[in-house]
C-alpha cells in the first residue's frame, strides 16, 4: 500500500510507480513529489525544448508544468495517466507562450542552418545537426509535437494521441505529413547529410 511507504524508501526506491508517487504527493509528501520530478523532468524538458526550438524559457515552462502538477495532484482522477497529463500541460504552455498573439502562428525565431556542407568532419557533423534541427523546427507545431512524442520519446501512439487530445488516426496523419515534409526539406542535401551520418557511425 502506497501510504505505508516511508519517505526514505520513496527517496531511494525505483520500484514505486508514478501513480503511487502521485498519490503520496497529493497528500503533501514532498519526498514523493521530488522523486516524481526527478523521473519525469528530463522527458518534459526534452519535449518542451523541441516545441520551443531550444528557447531560453524551456526550463521555465517545464517548471511551470510541475508547479501545476503539485498544485493539482489531488484533482487528477487517473494517476496512471500522469505522464500524458504532464506532457499535455507542458506542451500547451509552450505553444501558448511561443505563439504570436497577433497572428496565432508560432514565431519562427530559430536560426536557419547554412546549407553549405564543410569539409572537416566535426564541422560537417555540426552542420548536419543544425540542418536537421532547422528542418524539425520548421514543422508546424502539431507535427513537431507528434514527432517529439513518438519518434524522439518513443511513446506509444495511444499515449501520444491522448497527450495531444486527438485520435490515433489523426496522430498518424500528423506523423505522416511531418515525415513527408522532412524528407522534402532535407532531400537537397541528402548525400552530404548521409555522409555525416556515416561519419558519426550511425
Amino acid at each position, binding site marked *: 500500500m502506497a501510504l505505508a511507504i516511508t519517505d526514505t524508501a520513496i527517496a531511494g526506491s525505483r520500484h514505486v510507480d508514478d501513480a503511487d508517487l502521485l498519490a503520496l504527493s497529493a497528500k503533501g509528501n514532498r519526498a514523493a513529489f521530488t522523486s516524481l520530478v526527478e523521473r519525469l523532468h528530463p522527458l518534459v524538458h526534452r519535449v518542451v525544448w523541441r516545441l520551443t526550438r531550444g528557447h531560453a524559457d524551456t526550463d521555465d515552462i517545464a517548471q511551470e508544468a510541475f508547479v501545476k502538477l503539485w498544485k493539482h495532484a489531488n484533482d487528477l482522477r487517473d494517476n496512471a495517466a500522469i505522464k500524458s497529463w504532464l506532457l499535455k500541460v507542458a506542451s500547451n504552455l509552450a505553444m501558448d507562450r511561443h505563439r504570436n498573439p497577433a497572428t496565432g502562428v508560432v514565431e519562427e525565431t530559430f536560426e536557419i542552418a547554412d546549407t553549405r556542407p564543410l569539409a572537416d568532419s566535426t564541422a560537417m557533423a555540426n552542420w548536419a545537426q543544425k540542418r536537421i534541427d532547422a528542418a524539425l523546427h520548421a514543422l508546424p507545431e502539431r507535427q513537431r509535437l507528434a514527432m517529439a512524442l513518438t519518434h524522439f520519446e518513443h511513446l506509444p501512439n495511444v499515449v501520444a494521441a491522448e497527450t495531444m487530445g486527438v485520435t490515433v488516426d489523426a496522430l498518424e496523419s500528423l506523423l505522416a505529413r511531418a515525415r513527408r515534409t522532412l524528407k522534402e526539406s532535407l532531400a537537397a542535401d541528402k548525400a552530404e547529410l*548521409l555522409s555525416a551520418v556515416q561519419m558519426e557511425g550511425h
Partner: protein
Amino acid sequence: MDKMTDRELDQLLGLATKPVPATDSAARTAARAFAQVGKSNIVAFAPKAKPSAPKFTISWLAALPLAASLAAGVYLGALGSGSYVLPEILGGGAWTDEDAVLSGVEDMEELTDEDVS
C-alpha cells in the same frame, strides 16, 4: 534527386540535437513548486500562543508617591492631627440629635394604637 526512404530519414533524425536539462533542473523545479504552492492539507504545527500576563497600567515609579501618600494619610489620621484639613462634616464626627430617643417604641404605639410596653 533521389527520393529519401523512411530508413534514411530515421538515420538523419538520429543526428538531431538531444537536449539535456541542467543537472540541478529537477531540484530547482521541485523547490519552485514547494515555494509557489502551499498544500491545503499540510498544516504546519504551531503551538498556540499563551495569553500574555496583564500588564500593570501604573508603573512602580508612579505607584511610589501614591503609596507614600496613603501611608502619610493613615499616620496623620491615627494621630488625629490632620482633621483640620478635612471638611467639617467629615472632621466633626457623626451628627446626632442627643435629645432624641431612638427606641422606636413610641412610633410603634402610634402605628398600632395599642400599648406595647
